C-alpha cells in the first residue's frame, strides 16, 4: 500500500473524517467552555455538518472507491448523506432550547449527535457488510446514550435500557447473518457477494437462513414488523429532539443500507426475500396505521406513524428496479422534512413545566396561535399524504413504482391503509381547529427553532408543488 493511495482514500472519505475528528475536538473544547454558554458547541457542530456537506458536494458527481472497496462515494451515498445532514442540522437547531428546558445541557450531547452522524455517513457509503456494521454500531451506540440523556427521567432511562438490550440482540442477529454470508460466499464485499451468489443454488438452506438473519437485523433498525416493539417506548422516553433525529436520520441510513444490500448484493436471490419483505411491509403498514389510531401521547402516535411510513418505504424495496430505489430515496428525503417538522412542533410546545406531549394539549391551538397551527396542519396533512404537500408526492412515487413492477394488489393495500392512517393525523387537526382552547399556549419559539420549522415547512410545501428537481436528483442518484 503506497502513500498516494492512502491519501486518495483519505480524501475520498474527507466528510467522515471532518465529522469524526471535529467530534473528538469538540469533546475537548467543551472542557474549556463556561457552563451556560454551550450554544458555542452547537454552533461549532452546525459548522462541522456544513463543512462535511461542503466536502460531500465537492466529491459529488464522481463514483469513487476507497479502503479496498469497503467504502464508496457515489450518487446514492451522496443523496443519503444529504438527508442525514439535514436531519442532524435540524436536530441541533431544535435541541438548543430544549436541552436548556430539560436542564441536560452538556457538550457531549452535540458530540454524540456528530458521532451518530458519522456512523450514518459510513452506513450510506458502506460497500462491505463489515464497514456497514461499523457505521451501524457507531450510530447505534451514540443514539443509545442520547436516548438516556435525561438521567433523572424514568422514562428516558427505561427507553435507553430497552433500546440497548434489544439493539444488542438485533446486532447479534445481524452479525450472525453476516457470518453465514461470509461462510457461503467467502466475502463480505457487496459486489463479490453478488458474483458469488450466481454460483449458489437459490434453495440453499444456509442462504435462506442468512437472509432471514439479515432481514431481522435490518428490520429492527428501521422498526419494521415484527421488530417494531421498541420504537414506541424509546420514542416516548427519549428527549424529543433525539426522537425526531432517530425517526429520520438512522432510519434513512438504515434504508440506504437495506437498499444496497438487498438490491445490489442479494438482487440475485430476490425470489427468496421479496415475499418476506412484502409481507413485512404490509404488516408494518397495518400495525403502524392501526395502533396509532388509539394513542393519546403524540410522541407515541408519531412513533407508530413512523412505523407505518417505514412500511411504505419497504414497499418501494419490493417494487425494486431503478424506480423502486428512487422512490424510497425520495420518500426518505421528503419524510425528513415533514417528520422533523411535526416533531419540531412538539418540541417547541415544551416550555417551563408544560410538557405538551398529550394530543389533548393541542386543543384549540389555532385560536391562540393561528400561524403555528397552520404549520402543524401542513405537516400533518403531508404525513397523511394529501396533496398539494410533499407527502403526497412521496406516496405517489411509491405507488408508481409498485404498479410499474406489477404489484397492483400491494398498491391497493397501501392506498387503503393511507386512508386509515389519515384518521389519526386529521384528529390532531380537528383538536387544533375545531375545539375551544382550555388554556393559553406559551411556545418556546426561539430563533433556532423558528429556522428549523421554517426549513421543514418550506420543504414540505415546495417539494409538494415543485417536485421535479428532487425527483430527478433521486433518479440520477440510483446506484
Amino acid at each position, binding site marked *: 500500500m503506497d502513500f498516494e493511495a492512502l491519501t486518495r482514500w483519505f480524501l475520498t472519505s474527507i466528510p467522515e473524517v471532518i465529522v469524526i475528528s471535529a467530534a473528538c475536538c469538540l469533546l475537548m473544547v467543551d472542557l474549556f467552555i463556561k457552563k451556560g454558554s454551550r450554544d458555542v458547541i452547537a454552533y461549532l457542530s452546525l459548522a462541522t455538518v456544513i463543512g462535511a456537506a461542503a466536502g460531500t458536494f465537492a466529491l459529488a458527481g464522481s463514483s469513487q472507491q476507497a479502503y479496498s472497496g469497503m467504502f464508496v462515494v457515489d450518487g446514492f451515498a451522496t443523496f443519503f448523506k444529504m438527508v442525514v445532514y439535514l436531519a442532524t442540522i435540524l436536530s441541533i437547531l431544535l435541541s438548543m432550547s430544549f436541552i436548556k428546558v430539560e436542564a441536560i445541557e452538556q457538550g457531549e450531547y452535540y458530540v454524540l449527535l456528530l458521532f451518530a452522524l458519522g456512523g450514518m455517513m459510513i452506513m450510506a457509503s458502506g460497500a462491505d457488510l463489515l464497514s456497514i456494521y461499523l457505521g451501524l454500531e457507531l450510530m447505534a451506540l451514540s443514539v443509545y446514550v442520547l436516548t438516556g440523556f435525561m438521567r433523572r427521567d424514568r422514562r428516558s432511562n427505561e427507553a435507553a435500557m430497552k433500546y440497548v438490550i434489544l439493539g444488542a440482540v438485533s446486532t447479534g442477529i445481524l452479525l450472525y447473518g453476516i457470518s453465514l454470508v461470509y461462510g457461503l460466499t467467502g466475502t463480505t464485499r457487496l459486489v463479490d457477494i453478488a458474483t458469488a451468489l450466481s454460483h449458489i443454488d437459490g434453495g440453499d438452506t444456509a442462504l435462506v437462513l442468512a437472509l432471514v438473519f439479515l432481514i431481522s437485523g435490518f428490520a429492527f433498525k428501521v422498526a419494521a414488523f415484527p421488530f417494531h416493539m421498541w420504537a414506541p417506548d424509546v420514542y416516548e422516553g427519549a428527549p424529543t429532539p433525539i426522537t425526531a433525529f432517530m425517526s429520520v436520520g438512522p432510519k434513512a441510513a438504515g434504508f440506504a443500507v437495506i437498499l444496497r444490500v438487498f438490491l445490489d448484493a442479494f438482487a440475485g436471490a430476490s425470489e427468496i426475500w421479496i415475499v418476506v419483505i412484502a409481507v413485512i411491509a404490509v404488516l408494518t403498514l397495518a400495525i403502524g396505521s392501526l395502533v396509532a389510531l388509539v394513542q393519546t401521547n403524540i410522541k407515541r402516535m408519531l412513533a407508530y406513524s413512523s412505523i407505518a411510513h417505514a412500511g411504505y418505504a419497504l414497499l418501494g424495496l419490493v417494487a425494486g428496479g431503478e424506480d423502486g430505489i428512487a422512490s424510497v430515496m425520495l420518500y426518505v428525503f421528503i419524510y425528513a422534512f415533514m417528520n422533523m417538522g411535526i416533531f419540531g412542533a412538539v418540541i417547541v410546545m415544551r416550555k417551563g413545566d408544560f410538557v405538551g406531549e398529550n394530543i389533548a394539549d393541542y386543543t384549540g391551538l389555532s385560536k391562540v396561535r*393561528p400561524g403555528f397551527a397552520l404549520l402543524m*396542519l401542513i405537516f400533518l*396533512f403531508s404525513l397523511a399524504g*394529501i*396533496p*398539494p404537500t410533499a407527502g*403526497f408526492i412521496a406516496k*405517489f412515487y411509491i*405507488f*408508481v413504482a409498485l*404498479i*410499474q413492477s406489477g404489484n*397492483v394488489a400491494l*398498491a*391497493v393495500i397501501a*392506498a*387503503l391503509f*393511507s*386512508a386509515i392512517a*389519515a*384518521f389519526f393525523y*386529521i384528529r390532531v*387537526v*380537528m383538536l387544533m*381547529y*375545531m*375545539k375551544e382552547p382550555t388554556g393559553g399556549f406559551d411556545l418556546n419559539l426561539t430563533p433556532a427553532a423558528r429556522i428549523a420549522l421554517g426549513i421543514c415547512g418550506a420543504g414540505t410545501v415546495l417539494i409538494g408543488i415543485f*417536485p*421535479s428537481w428532487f*425527483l*430527478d436528483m433521486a*433518479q440520477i442518484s440510483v446506484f
Partner: protein
Amino acid sequence: MDFPILSVIILVPLAGAFVLLFVRGPALARWVALVVTVIDFLLTVPLFAGFDTTTYEMQFRETYTWIPAFGINYAVGVDGISVLFVFLTTLLGWICVLASWKSIEHKVKEFMIALLVMQVTMLGVFCALDLFLFYIFWETMLIPMYLIIGVWGGDNRVYAAFKFFLYTLAGSVLFLVGIIVLYFQAGETFDILALMEGNYSPTVQIWVFLAFFVAFAVKVPMFPFHTWLPDAHVEAPTAGSIILAGVLLKMGAYGFLRFSLPMLPYASQTLSMFVAVVSVIAIVYGGYLALAQDDLKRLVAYSSISHMGFVTLGLFVLNIHGLEGGILQMFNHGITTGALFLFVGLIYERTHSRLIADYGGLTKVAPIFATFLCIFVLSSMALPGTNSFIGELLVLVGAFGYDKSIAVLAVVGAMLSAAYLLGMYRKVALGAVENPLVQEAWDMDTREISSFVVLAVFVIWVGLSPKPFIDIMHVSAQHLLEQVLSRAP
C-alpha cells in the same frame, strides 16, 4: 400565446386568498372576498364570448411542463361540458360569500380564505387536462372543505367533517391507484386527451372502472355511498352546503363524464345497467327518505341524492338525450339546490330552527321569501317552465330509449319529489303563523334578494329557452357519445 384566461380564472381566487392573509377586520375581509369572486365571475364573460360552440376540441388550452420525469404537465382547457361548470362555480362563488355575510361571525377572514381556496380547487378540477393535475385539485379540495364544515359548522360538525373527509379520502385513494394503472397502460402519459385515445384490455377497463367508480360514486353520492351527505349538509354552514350541493357533487358526475365514459368505453357499456340500477335506487330511495324528514336541510340533502340519481342515470343510458339531460341536470341541480340551501340558511339565521314543524304561514310574514321558495321548489320538482323539467325530461326520454322498466321507476321517483317538496312548501309557507319566532322573522334585504334573483333568472331561462345551454354542450356531448359507442364491447 393567447391570454391565459383559464389560469387567470383559477388563480384569481388564490391571489385573493393571499391578499386576505394581510387584511385586518371582518368587514374588509368580506368585501375583499366579494370583490375577488365577482371579478372571477366576470372573467367568465370573455370566456363565453370567445368560446366556439361548433367544435368539441378543448379550447383556451395552456400547457406548461411540470414534472417531466412522469410526463406531467400543468395543462388546462375547457370544452362545451366543462365550460358550464366553470361558469356555475364562479357564479356560486360570490353567492357563497354573500350567504356568509352575516351568518359567519367568528374567524371571518379565515373562512373567506377557505372559501377562496375551495374555489381554486373546484375550478382546477373542471379545467384540468392532465389526470395528475386533476387528482391534485380533487384531493386538495378536502382540506378547505374539511375545515369549512368542521370549524364553522353546526353542533355536530366534528363528526360530520370527519365522516366527509374519510369517506371521500377512502374513495379517492383507489382512484389514485386506478390512475397510475391507466398511466402505464397508455404508455406513461397523464394527458387526458391521450388517455382517451388508448385501447385498454377489457379486464383492465373493468378494474379501473370500479376503482374510479368508488371515488366518483362517493362524491356524487350514489347509493350506497351516500350516508356522509346528509350529515355533511346538515352541519355545514350555508356557504358550505351551497358549495357541496352546487359544485362538489358535480365533480363526481364530471369524473364519470370525463374519465369513465371516454377512457373506459368497454367497461362503461358493460356496466351501464349496473350504474343505471344503482341510480334508480338512489332516485327512489333518496326521495323516499326525503319524505320522512322533519329537518329542512336534511330534506334538501336527501332530495339531492335523488336528483343526482337522475344525473348518473342520464350519463349511463348512453344516448344523446340522456347524456345532454344529465349534463344539463348537473347544471340545474347546482342552481336549484344551491338556492334551496341558501333559503334554509337564511331562514335559519332568523329563527334558529330548521325543523319544518316550527314554520307555517311564511307567505303572510315574508312574502318575498315565500315567493322565491315557491320558484325553487317548483324548479326542484321539475315543473314545466323551470330548468329541471328540461333536464329530467331529456333524461327520461333517454331512459325510455334504454330500458322501459328503469324509466318507469325513475318516473316514480320524480313523483315522490313532488310529494315531499310540495308537502314541505305547504307546511312552511302556507297556513297560519303559529310559531312566534316566525312571526318576528323579517323579509329579505337587497343582499339576499340579489342572489335569489340571479339564480331565479337561470331557473326560468333554462326552463323556457334551454337551447343556448344545450348548444354550448351539444357538439362536445355528441363527440363524447361517439367516443363511447364507436368502440363496441
